[in-house]
């Protein structure tokens, strides 16, 4: 593809991020300036910043790709990503803000007074942060290579480098402005092209999304084979293809099925899944719901934002605004996934469905100036997604590393920590090019839901929690979910029930974490902190009382 506007658009977004970062640098004076913008951010700005930080590569690219490939069952991803904020609002937002802690390890120490538990949570914050950073950098590599033909490594290095430098130099005050700007950029980058796409679909005479006999190519298409595969043609015959072969299809030809790429067709795609399928059965769906509903509150870059609210009531209002902002955004990826069925069916053949959002404008609207400008806008939005989520993650990972690993949390420590926190995920992303973006993000949610969610919910609402119980629960739940991640990434392919249990672990790891945490706390109830009454008062007493 040769679009002269894409590179300037991506460069503009990146430069703007850097410039606002430097503008913020002049304001950043102390470590607390860097970490939480001195708690002087208004709810609307803060909410847009949280939204901007939250809408990641998985939201911007991954959801549309999953819907294109698997259909209606994947709608649980956007619903779960939004519902996570409701869980956060109901159980965590206001008390967490009133606890007065900067980070999750701070909360542990304030609530349970244990240095060892603090170190354990630090390790999990870093683990979840890195796991979530890798797919962002992968998304950047994929997008840049799709739209410009640049090597995969360039996109990952570009985003990794810009974000590390920006976080190290400007910290979070700069980031708040950047993130809020990037929410609106991402919304615009999907919403404006969506209007044009719908008009185009209308003027094409509303072609059917699931036509009789499967998807068809809307225009003459040439696909180059990269991996050996077996194609099943529309008449039922099969063809073997090898790397380097080129396949040409005329407009109106049916799209063949590929053995290697799992793709759903027709009614399977249109209707909710059959209960025995390991990807869309009842167990997988409920497990995904649990991970996304409860995982959001455990994501380090989401939590750290709550300390920038002035008080508990503002934290609640901020969360409600975030819920509305991400809810509006999540209406859009579905549209791209559905229209991709009509205009970019070759992605079903190549399996690179994550690219649908970036490719759709030009595929549907042709080669004109409007189409190219819209494609550039989408690419810019995608880069905003990578930059903002990575910035938020890196800020929180660097924050805990500088205060809990390097020592005193001085500005110099923070900069060194930001560098360390950035190098590891960039290295990982360069070596793991083939992981599915949304799958890795889903696993990060599962770990967060099985470690920090029980810690926060029980810590805020139950007096009986002890440090030993919390540590045991985090190790059991987070450890089990982490083992499932390792098995998924490195282990052999599984089938049947073990596959379902490992691919979507939250349905058993979250209850496990809660059970272990409660049981061990009850056994060790002598270790309940003596000041638990004072802490409960501080977490729950209305801000207006100023107790």
């Amino acid at each position, binding site marked *: 593809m040769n679009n002269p506007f894409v590179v300037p658009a991506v460069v503009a977004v990146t430069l703007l991020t850097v410039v606002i970062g430097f503008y913020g640098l002049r304001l950043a004076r102390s470590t607390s300036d860097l970490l939480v913008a001195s708690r002087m951010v208004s709810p609307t700005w803060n909410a847009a910043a949280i939204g901007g930080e939250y809408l990641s590569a998985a939201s911007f690219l991954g959801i549309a790709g999953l819907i294109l490939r698997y259909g*209606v069952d994947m709608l649980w991803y956007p*619903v779960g990503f939004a*519902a996570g904020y*409701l869980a956060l609002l*109901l159980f965590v937002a206001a008390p967490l803000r009133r606890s007065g802690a900067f980070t999750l390890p701070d909360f542990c120490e304030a609530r349970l007074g244990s240095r060892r538990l603090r170190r354990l949570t630090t390790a999990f914050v870093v683990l979840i942060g890195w796991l979530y950073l890798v797919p962002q950098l992968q998304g950047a590599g994929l997008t840049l290579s799709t739209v410009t033909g640049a090597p995969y490594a360039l996109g990952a290095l570009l985003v990794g480098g810009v974000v590390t430098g920006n976080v190290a130099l400007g910290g979070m005050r700069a980031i708040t402005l950047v993130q809020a700007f990037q929410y609106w950029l991402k919304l615009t980058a999907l919403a404006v092209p969506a209007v044009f796409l719908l008009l185009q679909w209308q003027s094409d005479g509303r072609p059917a999304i699931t036509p009789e006999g499967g998807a068809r190519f809307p225009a003459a298409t040439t696909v180059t084979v990269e991996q050996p595969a077996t194609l099943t043609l529309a008449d039922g015959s099969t063809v073997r293809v090898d790397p380097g072969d080129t396949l040409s299809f005329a407009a109106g030809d049916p799209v063949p099925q590929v053995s290697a790429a799992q793709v759903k067709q027709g009614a399977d795609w249109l*209707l*909710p899944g059959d209960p025995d399928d390991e990807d869309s059965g009842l167990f997988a769906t409920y497990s995904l719901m649990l991970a996304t509903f409860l995982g959001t509150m455990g994501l380090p870059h989401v939590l750290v934002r709550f300390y920038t609210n002035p008080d508990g009531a503002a934290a609640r209002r901020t969360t409600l605004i975030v819920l509305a902002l991400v809810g509006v955004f999540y209406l859009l990826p579905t549209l791209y996934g559905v229209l991709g069925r009509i205009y970019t069916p070759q992605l079903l053949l190549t399996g690179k469905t994550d690219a649908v959002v970036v490719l759709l404008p030009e595929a549907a609207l042709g080669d004109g100036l409007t189409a190219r400008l819209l494609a550039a806008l989408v690419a810019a939005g995608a880069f905003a997604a990578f930059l903002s989520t990575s910035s938020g993650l890196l800020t929180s990972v660097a924050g805990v590393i500088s205060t809990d690993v390097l020592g005193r949390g001085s500005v110099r420590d923070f900069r060194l920590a930001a560098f360390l926190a950035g190098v590891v995920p960039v290295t990982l992303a360069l070596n793991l090019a083939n992981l599915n973006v949304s799958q890795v993000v889903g696993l990060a949610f599962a770990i967060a839901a099985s470690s920090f969610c029980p810690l926060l919910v029980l810590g805020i*609402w139950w007096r009986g929690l002890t440090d030993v119980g919390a540590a045991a629960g985090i190790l059991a739940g987070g450890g089990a979910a982490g083992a499932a991640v390792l098995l998924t990434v490195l282990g052999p392919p599984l089938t049947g029930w073990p596959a379902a249990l490992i691919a979507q672990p939250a349905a058993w790891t979250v209850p496990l974490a809660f059970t272990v945490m409660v049981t061990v706390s009850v056994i060790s109830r002598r270790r309940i902190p003596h000041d638990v009454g004072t802490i409960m008062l*501080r977490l729950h*007493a209305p801000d207006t009382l100023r107790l």
Partner: protein
Amino acid sequence: MTEQTGTDVLRQRTRVVLAEVARRRAGYDRTRAELAAQTRVGEALVRGLVRAQLALALRLTLVVVIALGGLPLLFTVAPQVGTIKIAGVNLPWLLLGIAAFPFLIAVGWTYVHLAERNEQDFAALVERPER
């Protein structure tokens, strides 16, 4: 955490935490004292507030669990629901792709509203315990 407190501003800035502020402030009434000093009356008040807020959160969670959590089960038990079309779009797409979001926002709005009311009730109780 450095902050200056209301009208009784201290001349120089000191390191304070919320519980200490309450202890230091002169002329505060008995209920506040009981809250801050963790007497049995004070602790009972806080327990009541925590229980009310938790009950509210759990009730709204139940609403979401039934409304959203029931959908996969419904689609499995009654597959024909998935084939119902409204304006040419199958019902599951409408429910999950569009309707779920306003529903979540409505539940969130209800929670903020009711949680703030619980807090106002608690504040009223603390400020005028005789009522």
